């Protein structure tokens, strides 16, 4: 167990409710009481992140019963992807977790490349890492903006969105669109990196630490913020692991587990960064994990830019013509290229038979993609392991002995995105 043995546990034992781990049951002595009020935090609520429905039993201000209803954004991604070719299917995973969309693309594309046994050029790997880290910062910014908004720090929203727009400008420069870029392909990147990207990205990297200082300066020593986040929503390390938590929730509970360090993918073993771990397991610690991760991600982006600037002129996508579209100039001269292009666009490339589970560290935790291929041009089964789906399972445990005002803080700190939960 990767928790320092000398530190005292947050609470003794396990607070996971039983028999249903995800439902807080009203204690028997309060059932049927006149003071019990069942309130619906409906799917349309300003403070639930997206369309989450919580059915809460209140005894005065205490939350004594809680159950979550999800499915209000179920889009049938997995079924839709079974009907589309591998190439066209890359547009779908982005919309699952719409805040860290590059990570979703990345996990699907990594799974395809594993099954194909395709080697990705170095430039593509480093650029993917750079964009994935920018995406992590983007996701944390939107999380911070909305979580702080709900707790009352309304001005944080404008501060965070200032940096967020800068990141989206960088995306627009490279990928052509702000969100849902579909820039990662099986084999590398869709297009080369434009030369104007590096100076702009440097400006962002130089500014960002001051931005994070701004955010911390707004709330870190604010009495109200401290009262509303310290000691709220406790989750011990053992409970977090039993409940399948990952990402900032797990690291805020004291478990030093980050897929970028433990099972490095892309080029994470070649960059220097720290993984923040805090062990009080409350909302404050998860907030600090997010803030520190923003700083660390900025460092990673800076290192990626250093490497990428030296890779000008290198290929950005693999050379395997059975999978990757040939460059357009060749279509005018080479018959094989024309045929390859035709086959890839109409039928789609074929991925050999097999099944694989690939996991990356998205902004919310372990984002996994389980792909089954039958050797054809379309996936047989794609299943996404969404960290927010699992994070919502922990609401009942975190809400033991909480007040209704803490409900907002706790649900906010779990950093859920309903697109992921419902898929």
């Amino acid at each position, binding site marked *: 167990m*990767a928790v320092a043995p000398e530190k005292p546990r947050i609470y003794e034992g396990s607070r996971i409710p039983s028999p249903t781990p995800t439902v807080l049951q009203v204690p028997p002595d309060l059932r049927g009481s006149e003071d019990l009020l069942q309130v619906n935090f409906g799917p349309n609520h300003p403070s639930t992140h997206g369309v989450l429905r919580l059915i809460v039993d209140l005894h005065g201000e205490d939350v004594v019963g809680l159950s979550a209803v999800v*499915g209000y954004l179920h889009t*049938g991604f997995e079924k*839709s992807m079974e009907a589309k070719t591998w190439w066209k299917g890359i547009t779908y995973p982005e919309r699952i977790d719409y805040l860290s969309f590059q990570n979703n693309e990345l996990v699907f594309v990594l799974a395809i490349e594993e099954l194909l046994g395709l080697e990705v050029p170095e430039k593509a790997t480093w650029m993917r890492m750079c964009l994935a880290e920018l995406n992590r910062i983007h996701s944390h910014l939107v999380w911070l903006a909305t979580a702080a908004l709900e707790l009352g720090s309304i001005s944080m929203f404008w501060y965070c969105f200032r940096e967020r727009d800068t990141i989206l400008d960088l995306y627009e420069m490279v990928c052509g669109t702000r969100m849902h870029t579909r820039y990662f392909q099986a084999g590398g990147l869709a297009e080369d990196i434009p030369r104007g990207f590096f100076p702009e990205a440097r400006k962002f990297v130089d500014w960002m630490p001051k931005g994070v200082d701004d955010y911390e300066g707004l709330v870190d020593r604010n009495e109200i913020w401290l009262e509303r986040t310290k000691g709220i929503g406790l989750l011990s390390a053992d409970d977090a692991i039993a409940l399948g938590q990952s990402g900032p929730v797990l690291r805020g509970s004291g478990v030093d587990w980050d897929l970028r360090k433990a099972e490095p993918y892309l080029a994470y073993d070649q960059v220097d960064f720290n993984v923040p771990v805090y062990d009080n397991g409350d909302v404050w610690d998860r907030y600090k994990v997010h803030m520190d991760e923003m700083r660390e991600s900025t460092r990673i982006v800076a290192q990626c830019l250093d490497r990428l600037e030296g890779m000008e002129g290198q290929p950005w996508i693999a050379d395997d013509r059975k999978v990757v579209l040939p460059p357009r100039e060749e279509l005018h001269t080479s018959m094989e290229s024309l045929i390859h292009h035709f086959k890839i666009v109409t039928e789609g490339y074929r991925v050999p038979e097999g099944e694989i589970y690939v996991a990356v560290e998205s902004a919310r935790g372990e984002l996994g993609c*389980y792909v089954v291929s039958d050797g054809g041009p379309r996936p047989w089964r794609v299943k996404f392991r969404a960290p927010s789906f699992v994070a919502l399972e922990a609401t009942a445990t975190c809400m033991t002995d909480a007040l209704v005002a803490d409900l907002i803080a706790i649900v906010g700190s779990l950093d859920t995105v309903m697109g992921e939960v419902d898929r």
Partner: protein
Amino acid sequence: MPGLVETREAHGEMTLVVDPARLVEACTHLRDSEGFNFLADVAATDYLGWGGRGVAGYIGDASGRDLNRPGSQGLERTPEPKPKRFAMNYHLLAIPDGRRVRVQAWLDEDEPVPTLVPVWPTADWHEREAWDLMGIRIEGHPNLSRILMEDDWEGHPLRKDYPIGGEPVRFSGEE
């Protein structure tokens, strides 16, 4: 390991095929003796029509090139046949070692699988999703109800015999 039927390795991953009746025993053994304390994902797969004709975009059929359809390629190789219709895949992880393993249980239509909620509480919602979308009955689950679809929805959408639904798309040039 109790209940183990087969071990497979591919793409750097190990898959342990387990008898569904002894699943809880096997998983408890994995959690306590082997250290797999983290259940990452529960994925249910429907293999109806696996390797058959006209499924997943094949142009030919299992016997090869279809001479009556010029330009068809046929299958390069028939996919390996699967033992039963449904597979329940449990992806396990050992924190802090970082070992991963997949536990696979094969089920027929209507064959239930025991719940893993006593072993890893996180299995709760994953198993509800498997029931809701794939129709795999979980025995002993404390709250087996629909989670993503509406409560009165009929059918299990992710099954291969469930249509994708939606509307036919009309184009502006048509009548």
